[in-house]
């Protein structure tokens, strides 16, 4: 029985399988089965029954998401019925898009799938494209994944030649074309509506929902956007069935999951394991435990936007439901381990710097709020923080949270911050105390000539002698210019 449907053909010590090798290993049998033997409605039902949830981070049930895509009436159930009455036809063209814009900090799983077995994703697009009766597919891949894009293009060319892509695939009525779209940076492109704007050649700002992309997506046409790992699950589900998929898991959420561990562990990596594997198993067995001299302090279970968890949570099954109960998210399933010797506030600032920089700038709380979050953390990190910084950080966790922003970017940024304030208040207080001590020594002592305390404190409340002070005296044309 197949236990690793996503990675069974992956061996990074050799080039990935070409079409012939992949087919010899059983490849494209899922695509053949669905295209020649099932109606789109039967395929969708199988997907719903399998319990597959989106692997991009949100964990939304894939079958349910897809059920909102308008279908031609003659595809709803009976394969032989060819009704063509007015209103029976879905808008055309319909699109299916693979979100291969893997950019969540700490996430390195889709790269493995695409570099290790590009034909699996192409087959997943075929299966998905058929179930949705899509006309065109795009693989939206981040610009830095040059090798993966080349491999996918080669796989697509092979499929075109073989007749798996193009007109009347496998002799049926369905035609489908697939293209690779290489992007050029910006994390926000991973947000599905921002991705659609980007694919249309625009700035990647998110769109309002509703209308949802299933109904009105790319150029206003029905569009499904799913993560690479989600799509790669489709061929094996079609081939082996919903019950097989469910029994792969240790818990209520079906399937396997690509889990990863990075940070100060002995053997960082990415592995396909049963859904619901615990963080302890991941860190201790697969990642070989913490490096000598380092202790686990906290971890982000599935990428930079997932709220922190503690060592006491190590035995919780890593699935959408159980991690959700702890107030965090499974996210992408690639965990970031933060050890006891990391500068904790510095690590948090690194994350918030990322989110601040990657804000698309469309809505004010995110565009203006995140830089202030970063600045407050920077102040704390460098010993020039004040109570006002801490107050702002606390305030940001609701001001920039769900309901106050246009998309989930800023709320994602608040995930680690909010949990850090909850679990590690002492870290913040300690930095405040250090800042207060430093300030005291600056104001009360005359620092000796070589003292680091003589260094100017940008952004300090003690502004009078600082380069960025509004009271700056040496700016030409300054209204505050010294007489």
């Amino acid at each position, binding site marked *: 029985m197949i236990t690793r449907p996503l990675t069974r053909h992956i061996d990074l010590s050799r080039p990935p399988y070409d079409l012939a090798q992949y087919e010899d290993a059983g490849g494209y049998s899922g695509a053949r089965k669905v295209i020649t033997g099932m109606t789109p409605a039967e395929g969708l039902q199988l997907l719903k029954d399998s319990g597959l949830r989106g692997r991009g981070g949100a964990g939304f049930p894939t079958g349910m998401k897809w059920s909102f895509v308008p279908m031609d009436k003659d595809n709803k159930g009976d394969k032989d019925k060819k009704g063509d009455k007015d209103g029976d036809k879905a808008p055309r063209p319909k699109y299916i898009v693979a979100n291969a814009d893997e950019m969540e*900090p700490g*996430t*390195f799983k889709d790269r493995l799938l695409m570099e290790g077995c590009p034909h699996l994703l192409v087959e997943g697009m075929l299966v998905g494209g058929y179930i949705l009766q899509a006309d065109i597919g795009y693989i939206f891949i981040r610009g*830095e994944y*040059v090798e993966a894009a080349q491999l996918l293009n080669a796989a697509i060319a092979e499929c075109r030649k073989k007749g798996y892509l193009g007109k009347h695939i496998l002799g049926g009525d369905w035609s489908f074309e697939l293209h690779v779209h290489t992007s*050029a940076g910006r994390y926000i492109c991973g947000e599905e509506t921002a991705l659609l704007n980007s694919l249309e050649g625009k700035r990647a700002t998110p769109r309002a929902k509703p209308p949802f992309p299933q109904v009105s997506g790319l150029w206003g046409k029905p569009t499904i956007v799913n993560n690479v790992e989600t799509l790669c699950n489709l061929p094996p589900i079609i081939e082996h069935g919903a019950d097989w998929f469910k029994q792969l898991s240790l818990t209520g959420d079906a399937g396997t999951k690509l889990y990863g561990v990075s*940070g100060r562990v002995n053997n960082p990596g990415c592995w396909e394991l049963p859904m619901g594997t615990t963080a302890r198993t991941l860190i201790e067995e697969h990642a070989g435990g913490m490096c000598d001299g380092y202790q686990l302090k906290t971890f982000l279970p599935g990428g930079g936007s997932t709220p922190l968890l503690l060592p006491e949570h190590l035995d919780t099954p890593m699935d959408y439901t159980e991690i959700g109960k702890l107030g965090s998210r499974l996210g992408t399933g690639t965990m970031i381990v933060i050890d006891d010797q990391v500068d904790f506030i510095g690590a948090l600032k690194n994350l918030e710097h990322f989110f601040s920089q990657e804000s698309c700038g469309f809505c004010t709380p995110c565009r203006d709020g995140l830089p202030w979050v970063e600045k407050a953390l920077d102040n704390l990190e460098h010993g020039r923080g004040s109570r006002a910084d801490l107050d702002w950080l606390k305030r940001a966790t609701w001001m920039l949270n769900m309901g106050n922003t246009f998309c989930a970017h800023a709320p994602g940024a608040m995930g680690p911050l909010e949990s850090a304030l909850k679990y590690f208040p002492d870290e913040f207080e300690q930095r405040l105390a250090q800042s207060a001590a430093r300030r005291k020594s600056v104001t009360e002592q005359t620092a000796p000539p070589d003292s680091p305390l003589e260094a100017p404190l940008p952004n300090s409340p003690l502004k009078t002698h600082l380069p960025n002070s509004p009271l700056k005296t040496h700016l030409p044309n300054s209204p505050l210019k010294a007489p």
Partner: protein
Amino acid sequence: MTDAQPTLISSLSEAEIAEIRAEVSHYEYPQAASIEALKVVQKYRGWVSDESLRAVAKLLEMSAEQLDGVATFYSLIFRRPVGENMLMLCDGISCWMLGCEQVKARIQERLGIDYGETSPDNKFTLLPVTCQGACDRAPVLLKNMQLYTHLSAAGIDALLADTAAEQNS
């Protein structure tokens, strides 16, 4: 510069135009190829000048301002000249924890450039880049879009030596 000159598509090479048209063929509307078109220009010229931008805009039937809005949004499109080699150092959380700052310090020491700067001999430009999806091999950088992993100060020395050897050969 004469007034008609700047918007001529012919300021692009035939190869560039052919590659851009191939991308355009993948979409319903030519504008959808804007990012890939800018990348085509960048592949040949290193960066996107105003003149190239206007030519691409004309080719894609959009305004230059609209295209510049796209160009300036995406971090891998360069609207200023860059050095012969792009060093893009990952500053993602995993690379940061495993010492990307020390790697950066070594680059600065060797080349005398900070983020956003180009070395005086025009050989290198240094930029930060977001998480590269290679966190199990941190810290990493991209040299001309090629991934270098498990970096250290010594690794930077080797990388710079290799680059020098490549360019002398």
